[in-house]
């Protein structure tokens, strides 16, 4: 971790959680995994404060804990995860574009609270949406639930690991810290809840609300004192899924820029079909047949099968190599080359930085060096067709800022 990163983490923790949490978080980031004792001693805070702060940090997945072999628990800060706080607005905005205001608020509530039960989320979001609606209108719990289910189905929210149901050995004392687990197949399963109700505005009790008989109101208030039907089943935002979405967006927009709108929509469709079937680190999506792709194209898209096949062939033949053909069954099997696409996007980003920072001449030399790997001064001048003096200046400028390096290869 660089000093700048540590400083940034401190600032983020302070802004979102206050001084005490910041102090403990920063201490853990600087010194690595520590037991509770050490944290109390080194930070000079009271045990109670430290415990509360750790709870907050764990709740937000910013600190994890692990039972060590010798029987004590160590707490470890997840620095990278702290930095992800910077992206919260982007995650929330993405949820809005995909699932409109309801989706936006669900993700926002989960990010603000770290972990929540579905019933709590639904109630809170219904109330917030009702606040913004016209007089007399309220948001139904069912609508919010539906959006929540969609977010779970597309893996944008996931269930949190739980205490295992059957203890290892019923006679042994419980461990100092539970090891939470979750089954892969349970991660996105929404509990069968019958959440009935509507959002409430924050108003004084004597104001009348249309169609809300007093008896029902009382019943709703009474419900809040009982444990929720999904007690113990907590949900959190799956930030990796948002990252995967950003990756897909980047690929689709690159195809739109280089080729055309239709090609990019086809790639978008292929990526959407692969959303939950391809792991996030995979090099290629699962092969998709042209027939399947045709069936999955968005409703408004009116292209005939023949034309789709032409576009797929063009995509597979293009020097971009974002799409590959892996077989001939089903009208042709195609995959998206995720690693190749990401490498190309990364290269384009580097080239863009050189272009804006040093100018188009330097960018030409930079791209040339990327292709040819090693070149002598003279070769750079010849290939790039830049006069010797200018080429020297540009190479030196990039050398001094570490964009290129010199390698001494003595000629024998």
């Amino acid at each position, binding site marked *: 971790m660089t000093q700048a990163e540590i400083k940034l983490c401190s600032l983020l923790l302070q802004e979102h959680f206050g001084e005490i949490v910041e102090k403990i978080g920063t201490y853990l980031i600087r010194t690595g995994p520590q037991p509770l004792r050490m944290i109390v001693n080194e930070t000079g805070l009271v045990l109670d404060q430290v415990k509360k702060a750790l709870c907050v940090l764990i709740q937000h997945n910013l600190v994890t804990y692990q039972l060590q072999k010798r029987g004590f628990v160590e707490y470890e800060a997840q620095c990278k995860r702290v930095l992800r706080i910077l992206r919260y607005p982007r995650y929330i905005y993405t949820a809005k574009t995909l699932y409109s205001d309801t989706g936006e608020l669900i993700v926002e509530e989960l990010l603000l609270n770290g972990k929540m039960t579905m019933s709590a989320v639904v109630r809170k979001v219904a109330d917030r949406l009702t606040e913004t609606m016209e007089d007399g209108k309220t948001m139904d719990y069912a609508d919010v639930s539906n959006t929540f289910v969609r977010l779970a189905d597309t893996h944008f929210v996931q269930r949190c690991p739980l205490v295992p149901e059957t203890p290892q050995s019923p006679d042994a004392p419980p461990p100092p810290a539970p090891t939470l687990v979750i089954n892969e197949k349970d991660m996105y399963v929404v509990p069968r809840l019958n959440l009935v109700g509507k959002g409430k505005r924050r108003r004084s009790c004597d104001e009348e609300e249309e169609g809300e008989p007093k008896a029902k109101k009382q019943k709703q208030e009474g419900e809040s004192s009982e444990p929720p039907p999904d007690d113990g089943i907590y949900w959190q935002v799956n930030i990796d899924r948002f990252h995967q979405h950003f990756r897909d967006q980047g690929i689709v927009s690159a195809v739109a820029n280089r080729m055309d709108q*239709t090609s990019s929509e086809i790639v978008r469709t292929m990526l959407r079909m692969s959303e939950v079937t391809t792991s996030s680190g995979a090099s290629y999506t699962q092969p998709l047949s042209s027939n399947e792709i045709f069936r999955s194209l968005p409703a408004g898209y009116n292209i005939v099968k023949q034309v789709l096949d*032409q576009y797929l062939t063009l995509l597979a033949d293009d020097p971009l190599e974002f799409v590959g053909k892996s077989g001939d069954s089903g009208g042709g099997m195609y995959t998206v080359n995720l690693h190749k696409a990401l490498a190309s996007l990364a290269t384009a980003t580097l080239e863009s930085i050189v272009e*804006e920072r040093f100018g188009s001449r330097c*960018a030409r030399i930079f791209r040339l060096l990327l*292709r040819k790997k090693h070149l002598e001064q003279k070769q750079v001048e010849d*290939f790039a067709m830049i006069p010797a003096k200018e080429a020297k200046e540009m190479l030196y400028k990039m050398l001094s800022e570490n964009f290129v390096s010199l390698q001494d290869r003595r000629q024998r």
Partner: protein
Amino acid sequence: MHCAHLSQGQLDLLRSNAGLLYRIKESQNASKMKGSDNQEKLVYQIIEDAGNKGIWSRDIRYKSNLPLTEINKILKNLESKKLIKAVKSVAASKKKVYMLYNLQPDRSVTGGAWYSDQDFESEFVEVLNQQCFKFLQSKAEAARESKQNPMIQRNSSFASSHEVWKYICELGISKVELSMEDIETILNTLIYDGKVEMTIIAAKEGTVGSVDGQMKLYRAVSPLIQPTGLVRTPCGLCPVFDDCHEGGEISPSNCIYMTEWLEF
């Protein structure tokens, strides 16, 4: 007897495995070489053998085994007699190669179409670069607007190096005659500019523009991404980025560019 003819400049002195050989010289130069000594003749011979690529004075020394001072004297002499000339080599601007006076220097010495008197014609290259790109751009646009099926659209957006060469020749913007390879080196710079992509296809022997059964096709392309986020902020372009830190003389809180940028 040989010496008399040699000293009169009527014979060429050559070396072979068997020893020294003598050959009657052409009378024109023979008269000029009259009065030259053997060493001069040797040097002249070495230069003549180098043809239109010329030879550096250091290499003349290796071949003749004569001391440098002698060679320089001889070279000066030969130059003043207009038997040889010095040509600046484009390979290294300080080095000169020597060749016979009447010879046209080879391309590798002069730099070919891109050099005029050893000066790299960067403006000319720039103009060609722009013209080639414009040609490819309009071809790609025409293909897009034709609204044909995607296959035809793609194929008609490409141009072979031969096509581009023909277009440039017809434009008549070059005083020098340009070859197809010359145009290909220009097209390559467009590839390094990220503006053009190239594909190689197999071509039947004899197809116009094909070389060794292959043809190079070029197409104008748009960049993959918009300028990236980092360089759209003041920090991405800042020359004192490395010196900037909170509490320092240069810091984000007292940066005027940052303030300006945040007031959008």
